[in-house]
């Protein structure tokens, strides 16, 4: 643990703060890109009920992909840099978010959706004003799962020469500096916990207390 608390490691362009920021950037940007792809897809299929097989197939297919292999293939094709890192991480993050969104929307009670149409909402309103707000706990579940995987897997960015906390792990391994390796791993774990806490906070802020699974209020 000495490595972790040595002030020398907390400054400079290859210091711990810089790596944390890099790692965190991989994480949130990956989640953002994945969200833009996965949420509309999961929501659309969940809402229409058409193409459920697509979600299941895509989810299982992507989950079966070895992330490291994806990373290496994209490196060979596009060269070293951020592109292979984001490609690999987004492919990792899409399935849980898509599955969470899809499952969340399918789980909304049919009578509630029926009532939404019955009061005169357009389809878009049914989805945005009724289905999504009630699906949020499961959507967040998907995001939290994805975030956890992305934070830990972003370590491999360093494997292809990019930054992030993985640097410490791979450098530590290469130079047999096991305290550096351990320090890097601990930082990844701490970051994972912090990111999860951010999602817990967001969930508290955005999920209505009336929604089952919101954590309070619901007692149906």
């Amino acid at each position, binding site marked *: 643990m000495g490595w972790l608390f040595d002030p020398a490691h907390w400054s400079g362009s290859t210091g711990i703060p810089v790596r944390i920021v890099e790692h965190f950037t991989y994480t949130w940007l990956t989640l953002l890109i994945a969200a833009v792809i996965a949420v509309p897809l999961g929501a659309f299929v969940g809402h229409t009920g058409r193409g459920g097989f697509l979600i299941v197939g895509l989810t299982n297919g992507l989950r079966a992909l070895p992330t490291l292999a994806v990373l290496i293939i994209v490196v060979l094709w596009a060269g070293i840099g951020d592109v292979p890192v984001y490609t690999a991480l987004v492919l990792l993050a899409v399935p849980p978010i898509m599955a969470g969104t899809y499952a969340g929307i399918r789980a909304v009670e049919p009578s509630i959706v029926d*009532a939404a149409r019955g009061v005169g909402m357009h389809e878009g309103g049914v989805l945005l004003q009724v289905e999504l707000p009630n699906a949020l706990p499961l959507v967040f579940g998907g995001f939290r799962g994805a975030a956890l995987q992305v934070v830990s897997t972003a370590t491999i960015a360093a494997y292809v020469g990019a930054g992030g906390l993985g640097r410490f792990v791979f450098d530590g391994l290469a130079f047999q500096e096991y305290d550096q390796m351990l320090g890097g791993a601990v930082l990844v774990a701490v970051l994972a916990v912090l990111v999860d806490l951010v999602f817990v906070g967001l969930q508290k802020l955005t999920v209505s207390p*009336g*929604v089952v699974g919101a954590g309070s209020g*619901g007692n149906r």
Partner: protein
Amino acid sequence: MIEFRAVTKRFEDGTIAVDELDLTVEAGTITVFVGPSGCGKTTSLRMVNRMIDPTSGTILVDGKDVLSVDPPTLRRGIGYVIQQAGLFPHRTVLDNVATVPLLSGWDRRRARTRAAELLETVGLPAEFGKRYPAQLSGGQQQRVGVARALAADPPVLLMDEPFSAVDPIVREGLQDELLRLQAEIGKTIVFVTHDIDEALKLGDKVAVMRTGGHLAQYAKPAELLSAPANDFVANFVGKDRGYRTLTFLSADVPVHEIDAVKVGDTVTSNSWKLVVDDTRRPLGWLSPVDGSVEVTADRLIAGGSLYDGGTLRSALDAALSSPSALGVTVDAEGAVVGVVHADDVLKALAAARAAGEVPS
């Protein structure tokens, strides 16, 4: 007014849910669709607000073909209440009720004010507005469902088994309140139920439907009982049809005087005595005694149902349920007026029968 003209619904799988339905729902009345499960009640109802479109035929609401209006617009002008209430769990009760006004472009404040009024109309305390649906009982949720349907003041209200998921006592309260409310608001209501008692109680007119989407009879409740069109209707309205008919006959039975006594009095009597309080409200009965006895609370035998001067059914029920076989009649304040005898009720029934008002 809602008109069904030769309306047929055949689902993709070939099921004919509604078959050539011709029926007119008069404005300002409650029309009940009743029939066994799967006979096409819900389908008929949902074609009015285009939750389902007919295969053929026309439905007119106030003279306008519903197919000429786009569904969301049409639905905002038609209140819709469903069995599970279908409240939005993520919205407070107040926001649930304000849904349609907000969709129709009212500003937030006006919609909320209107919603608060509606809560009062359906008998819910104002502070319930802040709660979420999951924090309400089933009966309370149904009231909110009704309030939500009424919020934009639509002329037409569709109700699909709105009370069948609540327990019988709550259900009866909700039914009474719907009738009270309807007397105030005078909407054109189509009410679906599988419960014939509910249908006879609520309906100005009742459409009895049978499996396959056929209309078996469309008539006033008393007429369904006194002149069922066929065996299906006769069976459906039930075995105690004769007894139920009494509900629709106003009572013309003599009210006899009765000696009332109070707690603390000393009585000598070999007949039943009615015990009342200081305002002449009935407390119970004292059974015939030998010699004299003081009236004490623990000697009281609980009375039966009270007769309010309304229908023959209530007169007969009061007499049958009373330990003394005398049905206690009370005035509007609940004070004792006298008693009715079961045999007088039967005589009145015979008279009504002779006059052709009752099935024989």
